[in-house]
């Protein structure tokens, strides 16, 4: 019964709808497109840095008298900014302390929740679902993890494992709701997950003002996680890098195995490629939607665990930051492949770690990083969109993905 309700496209069903075709094209371009998108975005970011630089605008006033001055101003503006970005994300010899010089570990720290939530989006993508709800799933994951982490006393190791499990369950519930509604009623997962994001924020804020508020505090922030509930730091107290990063790498390996080697993964890919064909082949599409959103939500929940048990240590309604939305870009850039997502998350972690350094040391607004990230999305998503808007036939290269 529910199966027929899921299908809303008009007959004949031979041709897949315009929307899902565009969607599939966006998701299945080659790695080269990702690299070029990053490159062009950086070039345009560089132009923006140059035109907003006061030295450049000062020297362009006498461009014809001394063109070299303008060009060297452009060069120093852009090279200083990107130099600071690069040094902040990797190794910065100009920093005051040796801990501060090793920005690479900040990059890995920032990348950890992005890897996990990027995987969440990637997995759902492969089953043909657009999970915009990573934000809410991260929040719920962090909340569940927090309840175990700061309200319960458990022995070491067991406590952390319980926190991880609780976070995964919290995210899975939130993702599962969207999957279940999609499977049962055909409710579009984009709408449902976006709405669930808002509900998650309000729910967490409510809990933080009542049950989860730190005792004696008036602010909507929870108590601190117990030490036993925290990810151990990998490199001592001078660095924020923690075992959450290892969890993220394990998650990449598991998701890669799940998608490429397991029966379940094959089912998801078949459903993603063509739900009707998958159903004809005897697969339970509705069960696929529900389970993939459960797993996707669990992965996003783990990103919430990485936040609360890794870097943040307390729960507040802003703990997800913009991770849930950056995750979508990361998955796009990673061509919705597990290891692609991993490297895309590293790049975004580097942007985050280096962006701060760029803002502080080169006086370039950190918004430039947001612009570069947005341009990346634009360049990846735009070509198929424009083709579809203007009905230009793309050169189909069947089997180019996989």
């Amino acid at each position, binding site marked *: 019964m529910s199966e027929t309700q899921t299908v809303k496209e008009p007959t004949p069903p031979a041709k897949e709808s315009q929307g899902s075709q565009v969607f599939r094209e966006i998701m299945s371009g080659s790695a080269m497109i990702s690299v070029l998108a990053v490159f062009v975005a950086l070039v345009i970011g560089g132009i923006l840095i140059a035109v907003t630089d006061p030295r450049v605008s000062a020297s*362009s*006033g*006498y*461009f*014809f*008298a*001394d063109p070299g*001055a303008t060009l060297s101003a452009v060069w120093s503006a852009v090279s200083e900014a990107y130099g600071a970005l690069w040094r*902040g994300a990797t190794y*910065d010899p100009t*920093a*005051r*302390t040796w801990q*501060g*010089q090793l920005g690479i570990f*900040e990059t890995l720290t*920032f990348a950890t929740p992005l890897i996990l939530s990027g995987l969440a989006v990637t997995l759902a993508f492969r089953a043909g679902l657009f999970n915009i709800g990573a934000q809410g799933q991260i929040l719920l994951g962090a909340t569940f993890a927090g309840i175990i982490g700061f309200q319960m006393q458990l022995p070491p190791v067991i406590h952390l494992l319980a926190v991880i499990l609780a976070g995964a369950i919290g995210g899975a519930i939130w993702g599962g709701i969207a999957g279940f509604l999609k499977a049962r009623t055909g409710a579009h997962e984009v709408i449902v997950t976006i709405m669930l994001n808002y509900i998650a924020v309000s729910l967490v*804020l409510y809990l933080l*003002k009542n049950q989860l508020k730190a005792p004696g505090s*008036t*602010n*909507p922030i929870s108590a601190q996680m117990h030490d036993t509930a925290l990810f151990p730091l990998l490199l001592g107290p*001078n660095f*924020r890098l923690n075992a959450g990063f290892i969890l993220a790498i394990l998650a990449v390996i598991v998701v890669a195995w799940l998608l490429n080697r397991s029966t379940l993964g094959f089912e998801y890919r078949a459903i993603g490629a063509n739900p009707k064909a998958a159903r004809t082949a005897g697969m339970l599409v509705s069960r696929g939607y529900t389970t993939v959103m459960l797993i996707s939500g669990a992965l996003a929940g783990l990103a919430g665990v990485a*936040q609360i048990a890794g*870097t*943040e240590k*307390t729960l*507040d309604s*802003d*703990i997800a*930051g*913009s991770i849930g939305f950056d995750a979508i870009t990361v998955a796009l850039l990673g061509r919705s492949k597990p290891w692609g997502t991993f490297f895309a998350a590293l790049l975004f972690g580097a942007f*985050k*770690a280096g962006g*701060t*350094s760029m*803002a*502080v*040391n080169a*006086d370039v*607004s*950190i918004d430039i990083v947001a612009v570069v990230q947005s341009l990346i999305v634009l360049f990846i998503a735009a070509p198929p969109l424009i083709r579809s808007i203007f009905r230009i036939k793309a050169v189909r290269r069947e089997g180019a993905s996989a």
Partner: protein
Amino acid sequence: MEEPLKNNISGTFKRGATVGTVALGAMALLLTGCGQAPAPAGGGGSTSGNAAAANYLGCIVSDAGGFDDQSFNQSSYEGMKKTVTDVGIKMKEAQSSTKSDYEPNLNQMANAGCNLTFTVGFLLADATKKVAAANTDLHFAIIDDNSIKAPNVKPVVYDTAQAAFMAGYTAASVSKTGKVGTFGGINIPTVTIFMDGFAEGVAYYNKQQSKDVKVLGWNVDTQQGLFANTFDIIQEGTKATNNLIGDGADVVMPVAGPLGKGAGDAILAANKDGKDVKLVWVDSDGYLTAPTYKSILLTSVVKTMGEAVETIVKDDLAGKFDPAPYIGTLDNGGVALAPFHDLDSAVSADTKSQLDTIKKGIIDGSIKVPSKSSPK
């Protein structure tokens, strides 16, 4: 002279508008690019400040509100900018967009070797505490938080209730409906301290003048009231203000950062429909920072953060840094009631002289403004 030239130009360009546009663009480029290259600067550079100041690095990290929040981030930031001009120090800045940015931003400031770093808002308390502990040779100052006890951290807090008390008294004196209203962003001490002071100012007016002006939106005893539960969604400010106006309030004090704009919009709309509602701004003098609402702006409860920033930098530069909290009061000018500006005539001369007495009374301690949120 001009006519033939104009004709000539338009005649030439008639055939192709594109050509004209391109030519004009090129001309503009030529004109803007035709300036003289400056002669190479002859050493020296800025010699205004002393050498110590020129090597001194003052830094500031915002909370998630950003430096353009028309509130405490902005006033602290402007104070820092002013200090750069006045004293000749160097400055670095970092904006935070979420809580997870606080610690990395602060670490970056420590890496850059900032002599003194201002962190704006209690939300940065944990990060400030941690980074200050790891960099004991650097100084920090945190605004609106008094929780950190460390030898290199100076808390900067404001007993805002004192100025809000005066605003409450003024509001009660101009109210025609006998009801004044307030609402907050989130029920946190830095917000409710305004509401406490406001409500107590109204109560004091009632006692002194034997009136019965009601305060809507805040109850000092239960510490509960009307909250938008956000500092971001401006429309929530409009909603809350419409509720207050609907219940009869004709003076509204929003304590919710940018939501004050939503409140101003609601009042402008209500006044168009024949109401006569006035606005009390908070944090900065709204007459200067939010001039759209000049016509309805009764007064503002001002925290003069800029002065505090400059004072602390100057002290540190002179080697006089101390971790004792700076508490802004009516006495030291850290908090103040802004002038009535355009609505000056709405406030009676009696009220003005009473306000002077109240200010003296608060300063000498004969009038108490108790607030649970006051800095101790």
